């Protein structure tokens, strides 16, 4: 399957978000792909507040079955969540479970005024009632579960989408 260029999708996503920006808008990227994307959007949108980054490892709903895997990183939210208009940023929207975990984690930092979801690609296959307010590209057909779609960043900061057989 051919995927649109990730750099072009970033521009589209920023264009979608721009009209809805509020003075209290902050970005929080979900590590790792969403974090790169949030940094890029932060520049494109000219926001003052630096973006936050969250690692949802400690909020996953499959911990009981799979335990801690990978290397959890520090969640870093350098601003107050209280009354902020949060835009949660992720690279690919799939089952919605990552978004659910991120929502729970955000609320442990305070009570935001609102939370919206921005994603680069919606690959279908939702298992929870979650939808993105901003989405740069929706795949015409859901991807099979045997495939992973993820964002990658080169050393010079270029973003690209890659499909991997899981």
């Amino acid at each position, binding site marked *: 399957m051919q995927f649109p260029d990730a750099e072009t999708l970033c521009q589209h996503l920023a264009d979608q978000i721009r009209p809805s920006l509020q003075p209290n808008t902050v970005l929080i990227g979900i590590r790792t792909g969403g974090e790169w994307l949030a940094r890029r959007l932060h520049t494109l949108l000219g926001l003052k507040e630096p973006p936050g980054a969250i*690692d949802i*490892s*400690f*909020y996953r709903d499959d*911990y*009981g079955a*799979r*335990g*801690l895997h990978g*290397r*959890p*990183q*520090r*969640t*870093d939210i350098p601003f107050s969540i209280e009354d902020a208009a949060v835009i949660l940023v992720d690279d690919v929207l799939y089952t919605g479970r990552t978004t659910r975990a991120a929502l*729970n984690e955000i*609320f*442990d*930092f*305070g009570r935001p005024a609102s939370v919206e979801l921005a994603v680069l690609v919606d690959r279908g296959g939702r298992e929870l009632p979650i939808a993105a307010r901003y989405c740069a590209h929706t795949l015409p057909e859901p991807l099979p579960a045997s495939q992973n779609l993820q964002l990658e960043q080169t050393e010079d900061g270029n973003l690209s989408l890659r499909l991997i057989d899981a």
Partner: protein
Amino acid sequence: MHNPQINRHGELQHLLTLDGLPREVIVGILDHAAPFTEVAEREVKKLPLLRGKSIFNLFFENSTRTRTTFEIAAKRLTADVVNLNVSTSSTAKGESLLDTIDNLCAMHADMFVVRHAASGAPVLIAQHLQAAGRDHIHVINAGDGRHAHPTQGLLDMYTIRHYKHDFGNLVIAIVGDVLHSRVARSQIAALATLGVPEIRVIGPRTLLPTAIDAMGVRTFSDMREGLRDVDVVMMLRLQNERMAGALLPTPQEYYKVWGLTAEKLALARPDAIVMHPGPMNRGIEIDSAVADGAQAVILPQVTFGIAVRMAVMSMLAGQ
């Protein structure tokens, strides 16, 4: 040799001792602990990882700090924590250790945190659970006799890594009552595994184990000589309650010769850090001016200890 701490998938099943624990497992625990330090800065200091798990703190020997930090760690992971003050309960009525364990298993325990005056008690519990096929129940040694205190050793390693970043070039001195110290044994095992090139042990001959040289350390009975150019000073508590017979003249005499004062600390490197597992005997093994001084990292040790215990608990419960 079979290591009862590691399961057949090579994952940590129990944490009983740092002796013989592979380097990658120790480093893995330290790496996992780092993100847990951030939780203490949140409005809601709680993670849902151990929701629905029951953790029993079994303290057959008194301890306030260790029990409290284990309790806080478990509660920040949303576990249900039961503290058993065993000295005033069934054991006093004659129940055996393993009968106590079986009863708590019948209450659907998921983890035991065990402190015991007898070396090997946590290992005995782990073997008992394995023999009964209870692989889903995990044991953490919170200090057994003179044997080991692995979470203290790990939090000390975390503290050293936090301030010194790398173990490869360090000179580290452990000072005091090594003979009675399970903390020192865990520290030496971990420091050696992590590749610290020079580990020194400083103390009166009567308080150094006879086989200490076999642990790959340099021993000093002259504190001034031993502290010269060290990067890390790890003080031990003088364990008055474990002293029998004439191991020491008087506490005053001990302070004069082996107490850490500013004047003796000046022989170490200028950026040396001072650690102590607590509780401190001020004016015996450490002078107040040093304990409260700029080089002391004794209170950060306590804070890091919570994150390290959270990491160990969540790694065990997830297996």
